[in-house]
């Protein structure tokens, strides 16, 4: 009955409201210098779409200098702005990470490490295997495991959680993180990090996106975008001989800003290319990726790679620990079962009295049940004079109260029966029945009379069933992992609504289960904290280690949850999906945008040669110049307009794939067709007043 001895867990405050990504206009302004710095072609190299725009802008700049006109210069300016806006998106996304990184750096002060074998060296020179001593008030100099002692540690620098945590040698709470502060006592820590690769160092690198690598889906999408860019480049470049031929045929047609005997002018060709290639998604792609990682960081989850975030969206099977994730950490009283014709109320009174001094969650839940079912008022222990409370010990395995000659005890069945020197078949049956259903029986006796049994059971957290239903809709199977026997496990699994369970699970069982799922082509996510979870965490496609866990677990997983909240796995999956959806939606939007741009630019280019083509000018744009300029301006502005969406991510509600596709296709597909018609027309209404357009 260790459960009666456990300290109640402190209920963690939810991380302060998640800033989804409301864009502060100030932020845009602050990131502008960075955006301009990113115009360097060596930086743009990784983004072929925007590189083409930049090359085009350089080309039109040269043309504007050699053959200046209002149209040429206006278009040139907007082409440069297009590149700057794209850089701005990336810079803003990175800027948010940088703010977090500087907060972390502040925590990483210059500390000195006191080696156990004597000697004082700077923390930066610590090697793996060094053993250091840290006493109250000192900063822990590096990541490691406590090998001696126990201490309370303030980890707020990393987790943002102000309540101190206990770190002790041995067991699953031995890991300490460099940069955190020991508040009491003295611990001896064996350093496990390599120099310069501490947890905080990695966190800084991650949030800054310093060595951000493209994720598999991002690479694939980049290939598609490059192909589209290439095909549009081809279709515009090969247009030139055809344009020259057509202009020669209609020799009487007047020269315009768009076309003359040498074919389509360079400015207009570049404008056409820039409008057609997928600049919108090309500009926002890396911002989407950075913002996705950022959203995880805001939920206090550190993903060691973007690949892991993407894999989270693909997860088919979720392994969840029962205790703390699916059920509340502790069992609660659910029912009073009297025996031998005892009045249920009498049992409840006895149970309540015996529990008044019992501060465990189980004990308190008995008091609550007595109040709810029989209206028994909660009494402060102090009100009862002459009462002696008997605390729980591992030897007696029961607790209770002595009120004069009344002695009330509750506890493990065998212990209480022995104490009461009674044996009752009825009690035995009830106890067995409760055990079989997955509950824990507590027998209550007064003096030598057994009154009845309290049924303690696991309580499934509120809302879990609905969440699992959501998961099922998303196509994710949930599997409950528990050390309970199969019958108990099944009872709880049924109640919680998970799809499967793994009972009496050993770490080897977990690993085998993950392997079996992966054999079938499924991706598996799990959480874990203990050292014996490490192999499974490493094997899982998404392994979320709890920050309270051991260093081995944190090394093995590909994410760390600083709040150590196992239910967060569900949110991580949603963030992974949201990341991909945002990319897909903006790609669709970007491609469908081109339809309207054609209706603006093709008549603008060729209506002078073939007047019939003016029929295609469905937006009735003012002039060829204003039409082309409007398309270019729209193309640039839509990037800025979509930066908030890229940072926040497309709204995601868990639902089936068909429902998601239908919704996103309507909004971003149809929206992508319609929006530019309106936008270009509106811009045209304004730019037509510019003299010379």
């Amino acid at each position: 009955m260790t459960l009666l001895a456990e300290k109640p867990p402190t209920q963690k405050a939810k991380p302060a409201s998640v800033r989804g990504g409301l864009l502060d206009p100030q932020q845009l302004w602050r990131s502008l210098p960075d955006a301009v710095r990113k115009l360097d072609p060596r930086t743009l190299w990784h983004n072929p779409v925007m590189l083409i725009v930049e090359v085009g802008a350089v080309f039109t700049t040269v043309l504007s200098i050699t053959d200046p006109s209002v149209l040429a210069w206006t278009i040139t300016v907007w082409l440069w702005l297009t590149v700057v806006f794209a850089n701005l998106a990336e810079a803003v996304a990175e800027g948010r990470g940088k703010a977090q990184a500087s907060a972390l750096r502040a925590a990483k002060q210059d500390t000195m490490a006191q080696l156990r074998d004597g000697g004082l060296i700077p923390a930066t020179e610590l090697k793996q295997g060094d053993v250091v001593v840290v006493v109250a008030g000192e900063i822990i100099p590096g990541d490691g495991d406590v090998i001696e002692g126990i201490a309370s540690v303030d980890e707020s620098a990393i987790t943002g959680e102000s309540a101190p945590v206990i770190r002790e040698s041995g067991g699953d709470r031995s890991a300490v993180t460099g940069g955190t502060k020991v508040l009491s006592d003295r611990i001896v820590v064996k350093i496990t990090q390599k120099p310069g690769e501490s947890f905080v160092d990695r966190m800084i690198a991650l949030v800054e996106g310093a060595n951000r690598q493209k994720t598999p889906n991002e690479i694939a999408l980049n290939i598609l975008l490059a192909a589209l860019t290439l095909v549009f480049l081809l279709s515009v470049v090969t247009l030139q001989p055809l344009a020259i031929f057509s202009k020669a045929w209609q020799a009487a047609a007047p020269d315009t800003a768009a076309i003359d005997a040498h074919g389509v002018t360079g400015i207009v060709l570049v404008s056409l290319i820039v409008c057609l290639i997928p600049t919108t998604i090309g500009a926002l792609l890396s911002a989407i990726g950075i913002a996705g990682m950022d959203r995880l960081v805001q939920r206090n989850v550190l993903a060691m790679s973007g690949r892991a975030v993407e894999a989270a969206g693909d997860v088919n099977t979720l392994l969840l620990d029962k205790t703390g994730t699916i059920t509340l950490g502790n069992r609660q009283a659910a029912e009073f079962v009297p025996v031998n014709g005892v009045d249920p109320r009498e049992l409840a009174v006895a149970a309540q009295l015996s529990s008044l001094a019992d501060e465990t969650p189980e004990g308190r839940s008995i008091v609550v049940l007595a109040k709810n079912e029989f209206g028994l008022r909660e009494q402060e222990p102090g009100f009862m004079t002459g009462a002696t409370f008997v605390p729980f010990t591992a030897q007696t395995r029961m607790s209770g109260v002595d009120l004069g000659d009344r002695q009330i005890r509750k506890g493990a069945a065998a212990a209480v029966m022995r104490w009461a020197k009674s044996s009752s078949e009825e009690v035995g049956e009830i106890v067995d029945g409760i055990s079989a259903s997955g509950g824990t029986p507590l027998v209550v006796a007064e003096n030598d009379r057994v009154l009845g049994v309290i049924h303690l059971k696991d309580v499934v957290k509120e809302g879990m069933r609905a969440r699992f239903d959501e998961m099922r809709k998303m196509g994710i199977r949930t599997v409950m992992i528990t050390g309970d026997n199969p019958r108990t496990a099944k009872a709880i699994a049924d109640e919680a609504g998970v799809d499967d369970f793994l009972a009496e699970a050993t770490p080897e069982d977990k690993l085998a289960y993950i392997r079996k799922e992966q054999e079938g082509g499924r991706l598996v996510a799990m959480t874990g904290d203990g050292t014996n979870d490490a192999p499974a965490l490493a094997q899982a496609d998404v392994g979320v280690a709890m920050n309270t866990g051991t260093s081995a677990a944190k090394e093995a997983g590909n994410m760390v949850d600083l709040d150590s909240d196992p239910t967060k796995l569900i949110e991580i999956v949603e963030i992974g999906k949201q990341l991909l959806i945002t990319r897909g939606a903006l790609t669709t939007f970007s491609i469908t945008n081109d339809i309207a741009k054609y209706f603006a630019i093709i008549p603008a280019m060729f209506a002078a040669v073939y007047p019939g083509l003016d029929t295609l000018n469905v937006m009735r744009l003012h002039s060829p110049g204003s039409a082309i300029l409007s398309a270019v301006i729209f193309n640039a502005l839509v990037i800025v307009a979509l930066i908030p969406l890229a940072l926040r991510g497309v709204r995601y509600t868990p639902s089936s794939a068909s429902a998601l596709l239908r919704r996103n296709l309507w909004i971003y597909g149809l929206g992508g067709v319609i929006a530019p018609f309106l936008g270009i027309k509106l811009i045209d209404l304004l730019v037509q007043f510019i003299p010379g357009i």
Partner: protein
Amino acid sequence: MAGWLFVISLVVALVAVYRPFGDYMYRVVSGTRDARVERGIYRLVGVDSKAQQTWGVYARSVLAFSAVSILFLYLFLRVQNRLWLSLGMPQMNTHVSWNTAVSFVTNTNWQAYAGESALGHLVQMAGLAVQNFASASVGIAVAVALIRGFAARSNGQLGNFWVDLTRVTLRILLPICVVATLVFMIAGMVQNLSGGTDVTTLTGAAQHITGGPVASQEAIKELGTNGGGFYNVNAAHPFENPTTWTNWLEIFLLLLIPFSLPRVFGRMVGQNRQGYAIVAVMAVLAIASIALTVGFEVHGGGTVPQAVGSAMEGKEVRFGIPNSATYAAATTLTSTGAVDSFHDSYTPFGGMMPIVNMMLGEVAPGGTGSGLYGLLILATITVFVAGLMVGRTPEYLGKKIGAREMKLASLYFLVTPALVLIGTAAAFATGNNATALNVGPHGLSEVLYAFTSAANNNGSAFGGITVNTPWWDTALGLAMLLGRFLPLVLVLALAGSLARQKATPESEGTLPTHQPLFVGMVVGVTVVLVALTFLPALALGPIAEGLS
């Protein structure tokens, strides 16, 4: 009214044969037993019919077979004057021989020569017709290999090219062609080895009436979506297409295999509904295209058609406008390229439709095999975008569409537009477009048509330009060669990459690829991508002409 009946009866007939004929083809390509004749062939060429090939081996086999075919056909054309049944025809010159050899091996059947005045019967039968069978079989084999890639469970094997080639030829193409030939002969097509008859007509003029194995050539020409006619005027010639109902039968034959292959796809991946989805995409595009072509022709825009009341120029009176327009759409929606009327004489928008059909990549339903694999590539690109939008790494039939798959699909998608656009621009830039008849937007359409037809392995011609010059023969030959074999190797590489993957089991979170929404999206992607690529060029050709 008769026009509608013509189209509707075609649809009904194709729907009726979809299951039985598709199932038959499925049994042919996935059966394990070899017929006695086939065993003999395998022994002769030294093939182990049970050996499986990886994509590399499969691709090398296809390329080797095709290279030998081109070489053989080239030599055949160069020495035909010394062979039996040459009818006294001279040898074909080098550039036309190269062009013709490539053309027939690539299932294009672009003809830079006039059949009845350039070729003898032997080269028609043993040279061209053999390639009509072989090139059709190669297309089907590659499509089947791609399907095996989707269906495979991580073993990387794509079947055996030599077995596929032999079985498709012997068990699918040959029997149908025998029956079709007999039917065509009953309808009045010529089938003999005569050199022709000289007669004096009623008015006293001397006329040469040709003879030859027309009916048998005609059967495989349509069934294999080849399109190379015995006569220069192709199926407009009364000996190649005597009546309205042979016209119907020819269209049916050229649509038969491409429209039934999705059934094979559905059967092989174990989900018939996936086949229905693919055939639905084909049908939507095809019916829309036919309706538009017929509509444009029947309502005949343009000065002359308005004046005379109908757009009959270039069309045979025995077929009429709707049936001719249906033929034009069908022949360009597939990779056939046979014609029973002259696309050059169509109204501007009516003439644009065949170009657009080919620009779609000939996927609705496309050539034998090539239509299916082309559409599956477009479906893969759609799956990628749609898959992202449902928040998962995109997967098609359980196979993940990752960087490698996207690279291959994107390259496939790039090849034909690149060939068409570069070829067209090159013709104008080098002045090879210039002939007397070749002016204005219509002249531009003629050049655009030629390269679109060659790069997509269609083989039909708008006409109007002289293309049997060395420049045109070489340029179009290259377009045909690259337009066939680059995509084909990319498809096999994709198949290999898919075949090595484990399949992800389907769940609620998987993008469903059999529902109307997905069908609509593939249609949308196909049309939008093509429109976006070719619209500028089309604007200066048929659109400028039509809107003037």
